[in-house]
Structure formats: structure tokens, C-alpha cells
């Protein structure tokens, strides 16, 4: 149900609600006014009523909006996804999500082009040049690197081709909108959950992602913002795992050898390495709380082995949202400069501040491969084939 539909239902119910006492009535009016303001604001941003991520609804600061009237065109459109690579399952599911949203909007999208740079910045620059030469109406880019792709994205921007950055931005602000989900929030949520689960006391180890990668470093910063508030939580060791399952297992095994039963919890920021870590913990017979991303292999193992866990998603479905944002741009509707994608917290155990958005088993798919990545807003199963 969208917020707008919920509001309509609320309005229909109002006469009955009037029978409530004065305080309850005031509360209702307050909720109504607040909701109306939000829905009004959202209505400006969207063509259709739709639910927005709570990260947008909870942003306490002014949302920087981009006027896109100069990009307004009549449909049908030719759009493109200039992808860094499809070298991992997350990126693959992202492409499927785009195809799904494009299919749903086939009356507006005449043609949708895909390029794959195989993680090479030079190839992606050439891909961008091709797309610009083909005079596509809008480009969604997941940049191989922030710096290398910046000049070409800037050129496209200056030539009047709207560019939307997805998940990995370019260095400058020369794009219309950046669609991603906060890695800082992710790190904070993981740290809060683990610290609260351990009741503020215990030894933990920190498994970081790929050394130097923006996503990995931002999650670490988020964690560092929280941990000082819990002086009873001691970080025994931090190691990078290069987002790799086998490195995750190797590193966790070595940590188990070094610290053994002293480890009370594992703060792991990624999905692939969480699978390796949980394998190592299970083999050592240590059932300690662990965090990760909802990679199916991790979800299945948590359920099967019975670990306390939190998974925070970085949904590949955000790729599909880029298409929606792109369509808004081409219809001249204002869009947020920094668009925060939707996300779930999925926990086996709730803590004071981190409550699970859905039961663990609803985010676990026994029939799907280990490398499948779950996330908010994924298209129906038949589209993910």
C-alpha cells in the first residue's frame, strides 16, 4: 500500500475516529497533518503514488532537489546503463531489476542499452563515448572508479545528457542524481545491533571489506562513530577480507586460533566474507552473534546453524529505482540530488534500537543459490531468472 492509498483509507475512516476522546483526536490530527505534509512533498517528486525509503522520510535536513525541467522530453525514450561490470551476483541482480522496471514502463522506454566495462575504467570511458555518440536520452552509470570516469561524465553533463550515478558515483557533482544507500548507516546499524545484543560488554572482531573501496571504508567509519559509545565493547582485531568468501574463512580461522572463546561477536560488513566467517565459526563450534548482508548463503547458514545475526541490505533493486528516477528526470520532475534507496534490517533477535523489518525466514530462499542477493524492492521471482 502506498502512503497515498493509506491516507485515502484514513480519510474514509475519519467519521468513526471522531468518536475518540479529545487527546486521541488531537493525536490523529497531528499524524494527519504530518503525513499530509510528507505526502504533499512526495507528490511533487513522483508521477505516481509510491512508497519511499525510510532513509528519505527520516532525513532531518533539507532535501537538495534538482530542477530537471531542461531535460524534459516527450516519450518514448532511449536510455542506457553504463555498468562497471557484472562480475558478482549483486551486479547481476541489479541488471535484472533494471530490465524489470524497463519492462513495466515499456510505453515510455523505446530502447534500453546496456554496456559492461568488465571493471576496467578505460573500457567504461569508451562505453560512455559510444552511448553519447548514439545520443541516448539519459545514462545511468555505475562507475568503475570515482576519478577516471569523472571527466567523461562531466562532458556528458555539459552536453546536456542527464547522468544518474548508481551505487558508485564520480568525484565531481556533475550528475543529476546519485542513487545509493548509505554505507555509513549500514555500519552504524551493525555496530549498534551487535553492541546492544552483547549488552554493551564483550570482545569482538571486525571483518572489513575491500581495503580502500568506498563502500568498505564508509561502513567502517559508521562503525567507528558508534563503538566509542560502548566502552565495554573491545575490538580484538580488525582485518580486511577483500569481500571474498575464502579470505573471510581464512581470516576468521586465524582469529579463532588467536583468540578462541574470547571472541563474543563478529562485526562483519559484507555478505560474501560473512559466509566464510560463519563457516569457520561453525567448524570451531562457536555460536556468536554475527552481522552481514543478506546474501542467500549467509541467510541459509544463519538459519541452519542457529546463529544470532543481523543482515542489512544494500539492495540491488536500487538499480531499478534509477530507471524510475531517470523517467522523472526526462519528464522534467524535480529529483533529489542524493537519492537514498530503500533497505531492510533483518535480524534473528531484535535489540532496543534495531528491530527486524521482516522475519529471517522471509528473507531466506532455500531453493535459490548461495550467491543470490536479497534486498528491498526486488522484482518478483520470475523476473530474476
Amino acid at each position, binding site marked *: 500500500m502506498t502512503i497515498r492509498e493509506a491516507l485515502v483509507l484514513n480519510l474514509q475512516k475519519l467519521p468513526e475516529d471522531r468518536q475518540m476522546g479529545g487527546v486521541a483526536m488531537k493525536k490523529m490530527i497531528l499524524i494527519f497533518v504530518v503525513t499530509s505534509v510528507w505526502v504533499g512533498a512526495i507528490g511533487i517528486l513522483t508521477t505516481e503514488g509510491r512508497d519511499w525509503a525510510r532513509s528519505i522520510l527520516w532525513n532531518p535536513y533539507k532535501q537538495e532537489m534538482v530542477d530537471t525541467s531542461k531535460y524534459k522530453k516527450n516519450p518514448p525514450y532511449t536510455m542506457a546503463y553504463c555498468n562497471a561490470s557484472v562480475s558478482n551476483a549483486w551486479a547481476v541482480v541489479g541488471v535484472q531489476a533494471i530490465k524489470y522496471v524497463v519492462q513495466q514502463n515499456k510505453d515510455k522506454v523505446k530502447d534500453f542499452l546496456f554496456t559492461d566495462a568488465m571493471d576496467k575504467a578505460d573500457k567504461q570511458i569508451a562505453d560512455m563515448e559510444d552511448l553519447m555518440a548514439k545520443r541516448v536520452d539519459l545514462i545511468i552509470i555505475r562507475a568503475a572508479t570515482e576519478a577516471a570516469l569523472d571527466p567523461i561524465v562531466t562532458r556528458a553533463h555539459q552536453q546536456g545528457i542527464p547522468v544518474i550515478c548508481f551505487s558508485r558515483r564520480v568525484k565531481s557533482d556533475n550528475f543529476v542524481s546519485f542513487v545509493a544507500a548509505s554505507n555509513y548507516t549500514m555500519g552504524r546499524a551493525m555496530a549498534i545491533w551487535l553492541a546492544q545484543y552483547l549488552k554493551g560488554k564483550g570482545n569482538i572482531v571486525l571483518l572489513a571489506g575491500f581495503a580502500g573501496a568506498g563502500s568498505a571504508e564508509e561502513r567502517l567509519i559508521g562503525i567507528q562513530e558508534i563503538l566509542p559509545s560502548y566502552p565495554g565493547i573491545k575490538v580484538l582485531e580488525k582485518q580486511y577480507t577483500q569481500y571474498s568468501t575464502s579470505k573471510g574463512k581464512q581470516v576468521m580461522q*586465524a582469529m579463532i586460533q588467536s583468540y578462541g572463546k574470547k571472541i563474543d561477536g563478529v562485526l562483519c560488513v559484507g555478505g560474501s566474507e560473512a559466509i566464510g566467517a560463519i563457516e569457520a565459526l561453525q567448524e570451531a563450534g562457536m555460536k556468536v552473534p554475527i552481522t552481514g548482508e543478506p546474501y542467500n548463503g549467509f541467510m541459509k547458514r544463519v538459519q541452519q546453524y542457529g546463529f544470532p545475526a543481523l543482515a542489512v541490505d544494500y539492495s540491488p533493486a536500487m538499480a531499478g529505482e534509477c530507471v524510475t528516477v531517470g523517467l522523472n528526470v526526462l519528464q522534467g520532475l524535480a529529483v533529489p540530488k542524493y537519492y537514498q534507496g530503500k533497505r531492510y534490517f533483518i535480524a534473528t533477535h531484535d535489540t532496543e534500537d534495531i528491530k527486524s523489518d521482516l522475519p529471517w525466514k522471509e528473507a531466506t530462499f532455500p531453493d535459490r543459490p548461495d550467491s543470490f542477493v536479497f534486498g528491498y524492492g526486488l522484482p518478483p521471482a520470475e523476473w530474476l531468472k
Partner: protein
Amino acid sequence: MVSVKLLFEKYGIYIFLLLLVVFSSLVSPTFLRPQNLVNILNPAAALGMVAIGQTFVILTGRGGLDLSVASVMATVAVIAAAYTRGQDTLLLPAAIICLSFGVLVGLINGGLVTKLRVPPIMATLGMMIILQGVRFIYTKGIPEGTYPPLLRFLGTGFVGFVPTSVLSLSAMMIIAVLVLNKTVFGRQLYAVGGNINAAILSGYNTDLILILVYIISGVAASIGGLYLAGWIGVADNWVGQGYEVDSIAAVVMGGTSFEGGRGGVFGTIAGVLILVILYNLVLLLHLPVQTQYMVKGGVIIFAASFYVRRRAR
């Protein structure tokens, strides 16, 4: 004095391995714990299997090496998961398919090197990239399936107190040593590596030997890939990433010369052990895991310079 020098030159790698073990157990009290040794030996077994195949290729000399091994490992890993879907009964047919795949890749590599005269580094590099593409088309980016318990047992289990993977590696090692030292093929292989013109003049079918060598490497990589998959337990498109460099490093450290005709399997296994112990030590000493890359690079350069100096004398 001379005999000590000779001893060091001939058995330098084993002495180094012994010193490394002693050093490791001194600096890290956890090193010699049985569980830590198991942690070292399980991934070492997979690397050892690949490195045995690599030894055969490098022994042929004239720049012979196989860069496609890691790609073969990853490809068989995804094939095995998709084909068995976690069922033990399907493991044997899956293994046959995987080994046949290794044979096919080796046959193509060998054919390119012998018949089309493509330098081995280019032929196997090309094959590595082609296999990546094949894998992504086959899996559509998301590898399907899971590994059967039997494969997990092979990758992580024990017979008595010995890890299964170590037993398997030992068996492969014995076979490799017998093939290299007790068969006509083995003797001809050393001859080809030592002096290919002499080998041709002696009437050896050098092309056949080279093709067989690449087939052996492909099969060894397939077996290594299956064991590594059993150890990790997750079907992943990048199983074995970096094993091409690791296996070459182990072979070079083990004293097998790029000039060909010199070296053998025991040295390679010692090289494998040195490599994985150093990796483990990095973690036990709480150094950043990226230090492993520096260790790997440093060891390759050190080993290569050591043997070049030795041979120059």
C-alpha cells in the same frame, strides 16, 4: 665446507621450510596447534594439486606455464554445484564431467602451443579470459546449486586425524613422482625440457608430450578446484582466484626452472607449504591481510634470484 654448500643448494628449500616452521612456532604460540595446522593444510592441499600440474608444464621449459588454472578451478566449481545440486549420488558423474573439462582445456592449450606455436603465456592467458566469459554465460552471473556433503567431506573432513584433502594430495603426489621418474613419458618430459632439439633428434614426439603436459595441468586444476570448492562450501564465480600466480610461485620456489628440465614435485609441495605458512603467519601476527600480497611477490623474486645465482655458478 663444500659439502655443506652443496647440501644447502640441493636442499635449500627444505631447510628453509624447516626454519620457517621453527620460526613460526617461536613467534606465534598458536602456530603448532593441531587446528591451526589443519587450517593451513586444507587450502594448501588444493594449491598443491594445482601446483603439481603447473610443475609438469614449467618442466617443459621455454616459457612453458599455465595461466588458465584458476579459471579452470572456478569453472569446475560452478559446474559441480549446478550439476550435483547438493546430491552425493551425482558427485561421481559431476567429477567425471569436471575432469573431462580439464582434459578439454588442456588439449586446447597444448594444441595452441604446439600446432599454432602460440607462446604458452599468451595461449593460457587467452584461455583464462575465454573461460571467464564461458563461466558468466553458463551461470548468468549467479552460480546455481550447492555442494554435496561428500565433497564437503573431501574438502574439510578427516580420516582418523589426517585431513582428507591431505591424503588426496599425498596420493596425487605419489602418482606424479612415479610418472615423472619411473615412466618413459617422465623421462621424455625431462628431455624435452632439457633440450628440445636433442629430444626431437632422439625421435620423441615432442608435440604429444607437450599436449599431454597441458592436459595433466588442466586435470590437476580441475581436481584442485573441486577440493577448494569443498573447502569453501559456496559456489562462486571466483573460486581459486589468484591460484595461477600462487601455483607458479610455489613451483619456482620449489626449484623447478623456467628453463625446463630441472626440478620436481617434492620441491613444489615444499614451495606450497612455505607460501601457505607465510600467509597464515601474516594473520597470526595480526599484520594486515594485504601483507600477503607483499609476501607472495617478495618470495617469488627471492626464489627466482636464488636459483639464478645458484645456476650461474
